[in-house]
């Protein structure tokens, strides 16, 4: 075979294609990479905005206001007892996890280990629909159903709001998250591990609890941390059902109204826009400080859970 040498010789330029196509390639790349970089800008914006404004708050207050007998932004002098809303937050999140951890993990185990593919397809949408319910709706449910039935009738509380009702509401909200993350982790455990256990005569319950659960444990821990972080950041349920919008004493009784970090931010946001407190200090500024604390806490929890998830990915 003789190759005709009279045609233009193949060179790098001909292989590279037309200039127009390459230019287009460059333009597209520039556009979409800047879209990706935008997310970094957003994070930076959050950090700068929070730190900047929180600094203004800390500069203007007297530090003794941060340690008082409660959270009363509009008193004179104002009381910004951070411990009060921190306790409230942790309390709500713990109650939520008492609900979401067993129910979420149970549902995940059933879907991953017991349900046939067909049953799985019918049951999984329950969790998806529950995940799609907006949190204001759950807040209304917590206020009008959970509080009157469980907290008032069953436990005999007298107040119209309670930390407990809010916590249960947040727990219901968190179930789908815990279930879906931990189900992913259990579903990813290789079938060979299960078959090896069945091969030496293990029952399904033994396989689930002694083989699949330990193999997926980092993913399960990740789901719980993520759920906890979500519960800490949940706002609307607390704002509606926990009461104590004007302020709260430092206490740990879950049957009475209380205030959380998110609840404090939202009530500062809606009530006090232009109003200064009697002390002449604008309590509105406090929301940036609480926001910064909230951001730091949830950020740390999310990083921790990401670390656990990565461990699952590395193993299988």
């Amino acid at each position, binding site marked *: 075979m003789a190759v005709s040498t009279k045609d233009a010789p193949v060179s790098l330029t001909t292989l590279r294609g037309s200039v127009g196509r390459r230019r287009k390639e460059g333009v597209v790349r520039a556009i979409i990479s800047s879209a990706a970089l935008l*997310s970094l800008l957003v994070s930076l914006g959050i950090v700068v905005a929070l730190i900047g404004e929180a600094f203004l708050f800390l500069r203007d207050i007297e530090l003794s206001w941060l340690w008082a007998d409660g959270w009363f932004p509009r008193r004179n002098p104002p009381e910004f007892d951070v411990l009060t809303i921190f306790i409230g937050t942790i309390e709500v999140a713990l109650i939520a996890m008492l609900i979401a951890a067993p129910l979420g993990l149970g549902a995940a185990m059933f879907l991953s280990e017991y349900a046939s593919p067909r049953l799985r397809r019918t049951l999984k949408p329950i969790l998806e629909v529950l995940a799609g319910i907006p949190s204001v709706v759950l807040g209304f449910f917590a206020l009008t159903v959970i509080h009157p039935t469980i907290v008032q009738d069953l436990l005999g509380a007298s107040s119209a709001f309670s930390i407990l009702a809010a916590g249960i509401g947040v727990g219901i909200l968190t179930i789908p998250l815990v279930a879906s993350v931990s189900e992913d982790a259990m579903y990813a455990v290789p079938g060979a591990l299960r078959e090896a256990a069945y091969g030496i005569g293990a029952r399904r319950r033994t396989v689930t609890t002694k083989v699949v659960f330990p193999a997926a444990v980092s993913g399960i821990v990740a789901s719980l941390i993520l759920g906890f972080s979500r519960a800490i950041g949940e706002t609307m349920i607390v704002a509606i059902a926990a009461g104590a919008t004007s302020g709260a004493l430092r206490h740990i009784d879950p049957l009475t109204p209380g205030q959380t970090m998110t609840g404090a931010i939202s009530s500062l946001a809606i009530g006090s826009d232009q109003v200064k407190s009697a002390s002449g200090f604008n309590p509105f500024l406090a929301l940036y400080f609480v926001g910064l604390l909230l951001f730091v806490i949830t950020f740390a929890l999310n990083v921790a859970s990401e670390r656990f998830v990565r461990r699952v990915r590395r193993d299988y």
Partner: protein
Amino acid sequence: MAIVASEASVRSTVEQALRGSKRDLRGRLFEAALLGSLLLSLAVLLALLWSVLQTALPVFAERGFDFVTSNMSRIESRAGVRQALIGSLLLIAFVFVVAVPLGIAAAIYLQEYAKDTKLNRLLIANIRNLAGVPSIVFGILGLVVFVQAFRVVTGPEVYGKSIISGGLTLSVLVIPIVILVSMEALRAVPTSIREAAYGVGATRWEVVRSHVLPYAAPGIFTGVILSLARAFGETAPLLLVGAVTGYLSPGLGGSLLEVLQGQYTALPTIVFSWSRQPGDEWRELTAAAIIVLLVVIMIVNAAAIVLRNRYERKW
């Protein structure tokens, strides 16, 4: 030794040992408990829907569709959700125009273009973290940046508390989620599709545009619609960027820019402020507003499910 078991008794012992005791009671209980936790979630869901429906019934029975077409009012018998519904739909349209293109573009970059460098890994980790940041923190960002810093653009006459501010805040909140679901959908497209296109000399963008994107489109759209549904029900950030909770003047006229720079309210915000009013009438109104909210969300979700079932393909 004289103890020699008969063949029959040995066989029955061995059989029994292999079979295990017939009734594995604990195993059954365990399974029932697992199924129970799933069914309990279902029961809660049903109880929620039932109680809301029951509370809302008087409103719809008395006023019918009038509730949906009335403006906000402080008088119980006249209050309606028209402005809130319009406000919410405008916000979602805004989010759709801003967040969806940006999110999909970023996902294409991260999944198809980006090499495994330190910067890109940082970008992805950062996006994951943003998706986990509480929504109220995004509200604070919106307050500082859109409402205060860019007041001149977002709404000089309403102190920056406009649809633009609300829409941008929700967009920033939704973008990380859109990026993550789109990346997931792009990842599911088999490499062989890309290699076939590269093999006939396509550039990277040509590969993405005419080969990868068409296959990933159903997945991307499903994810995008679900994130829009989430934005529709989001309340906390709107409280900070000033959705009106009390009375809103009925006028929603003027040019598009005037509408976008004007005051607004949204369905979930209405639900929140009404749920804090005392009295049974407001409670019923709140439940009715929730029904409207849930119906819109259900329509959106149903659209996503139809899309997914219609175009889902297995490789």
